[in-house]
């Protein structure tokens, strides 16, 4: 709660929260907000502001298949948020639990888990995505798997470092001398102190995962075509962007804005984490 209060006092965090909230609302209420069916051809390719044959406005124009770009953008928010939050949640469950165990117990368990993490970190991320998607095929679930493999080692390292640090704190020593079980020490003493730094990483990772979903879409390795997806929209419109920049510019703005919001939020959380560790 203290963290949340501090967030509300930072203008950049407020901006981040606001953009995040708008994105979330858009994703939740996409069917109500989108003026058209994102998959339906309603007109030939149209510039922003044109009027569709049925008399409705196409505020952002229509793409090369004549689908309303605004509607695809709105439904795309749902795609991007859904898959990036699922992927991030998976990465965090794996990374946090493994990191806690490695940092708390140390020794051989730590060596083994760290080795696995470092092996995964040895792959350049895009290479890892390409390998996983090529071997398992392009689908939402495989995006989650790929992102978890790529992202969990990073979360693992953060959690492990915090657990290693906390393990030497006197309040943890006190809990141990009182006969607290290992699970309780990890859950009651260590984890609550990792919340703010983890939250900072969560925001950043949520943003990067949104970008990853976009990049995979852009590379044609993401969700299979008619699904409205920001990265996919750029990929589809790329070759005609010279003549019709509106095909690609709006999804690019959308994803940049979302990432900026998450970065600012993460930055503010890091400041708070730093401040409270100083106090």
């Amino acid at each position, binding site marked *: 709660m203290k963290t949340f209060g501090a967030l509300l006092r930072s203008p*950049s965090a407020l901006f981040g929260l606001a953009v995040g909230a708008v994105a979330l609302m858009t994703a939740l209420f996409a069917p109500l907000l989108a003026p058209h069916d994102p998959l339906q051809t309603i007109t030939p390719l149209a510039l922003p502001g044109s009027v569709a044959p049925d008399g409705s406005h196409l505020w952002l124009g229509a793409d090369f298949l004549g689908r309303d770009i605004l509607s695809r953008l709105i439904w795309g928010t749902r795609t991007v948020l859904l898959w990036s939050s699922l992927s991030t949640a998976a990465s965090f469950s794996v990374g946090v639990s493994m990191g806690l165990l490695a940092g708390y117990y140390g020794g051989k368990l730590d060596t083994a888990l760290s*080795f696995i993490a*470092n*092996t995964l*970190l*040895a*792959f*350049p*991320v*895009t*290479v890892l995505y*390409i*390998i*996983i*998607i*090529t*071997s398992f095929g392009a689908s939402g679930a495989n995006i989650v798997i790929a992102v978890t493999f790529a992202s969990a080692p990073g979360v693992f390292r953060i959690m492990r*470092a915090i657990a290693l640090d906390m393990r030497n704190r006197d309040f943890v020593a006190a809990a141990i001398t009182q006969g607290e079980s290992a699970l309780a020490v990890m859950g009651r003493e260590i984890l609550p102190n990792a919340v703010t730094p983890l939250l900072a990483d969560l925001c950043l990772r949520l*943003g990067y995962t949104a*970008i990853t979903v*976009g*990049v995979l879409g*852009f*590379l*044609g*390795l993401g969700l299979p075509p008619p699904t409205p997806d920001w*990265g996919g929209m*750029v990929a589809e419109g*790329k070759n005609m*962007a*010279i003549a019709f*920049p509106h095909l*690609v*510019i709006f999804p*690019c*703005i959308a*994803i*940049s804005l979302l*990432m*900026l919001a*998450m*970065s*600012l939020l993460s*930055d503010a959380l890091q400041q708070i984490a730093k401040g409270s560790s100083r106090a």
Partner: protein
Amino acid sequence: MLHFIARRFLVLLATMLAVSFVVFAALELNIEDVATHVLGQFATADQRHLWLAENGYYDPFLYRYLRWLMHFLIGDWGRSIHFKEEVTTLIPYYLKNTAMLAGISLAVMTPLALLLGVLAGMREGSALDRMISFFAIATTSIPQFASAVFLSGIFVFWLHLLPGASPMTSGFAWRELVMPVLVLVLAGTGYLTRMTRASMVEVMSSAYVRTARMKGNSFARVVLRHALRNAMVTPVTVVMLYIPWLLANVVVVEVFFAYRGFGTLLYTASLQHDVFLIEGCTMVAVVAVVSTQLFSDLAYVWLNPRVTFDAPSEKTAGAAA
């Protein structure tokens, strides 16, 4: 020191071995898939069966892995299905192009980021600091395919200054390099700037900088003589880690600008399910990553006389202490 290098080197070898196993398992565990990818979708089941038998794919998996590894070590990386050429002849050509792209990007990015980071970090909270910090966050937030779109919009379609693609079909052209470099620099500078800034802020608030001030040093001299050297340790080691970052990120940029580099090669290989080419590319990329990590660790030890060689290298922990 020697002990430290030897140990790190052993870890490096173990990592490479683990990686090779993962790669092989991911791509060749399912032999039916391999046969389909090699022979094409229209091959019959009998043809696939024959090919698999001929190439020893019915041997036990572990045996196949070891054989593959031995071949790999002696330089027999197989033939690309799509390009119909030896993998070992394909990779160097494409890698060279990427090395040039990445090298120029690094050469532009590093001094720029270090300068901005030092300027921001020497007076924490100043207007200049806030400006640079925001710039750093904003630029890292734009995904590369988006900044490629934005920058193309400005320099190619609006100002007509540069070509919009970089296939270099009619020989090498400097003008075609500018856009990809620009996109990479824009994406990469922010992070290094923030690292440098953080390091600089920490150093500027240290006791020895205060001592230097109380000796009668001017602010400029304190920054140049006392702060810089210590503040550079972390960013310099981070620069090394940009090589893997670039390897991962050139894919998007190269594909966007149709630049014939390592990223495009890997991308084409993955679209075509060119199994042996993917294996070759991945192993090369991993070698690059792991060896830069080693160099980064060495640089850290070399720049920071306080680090004990046998302590596990935990950069964040070392920098914080």
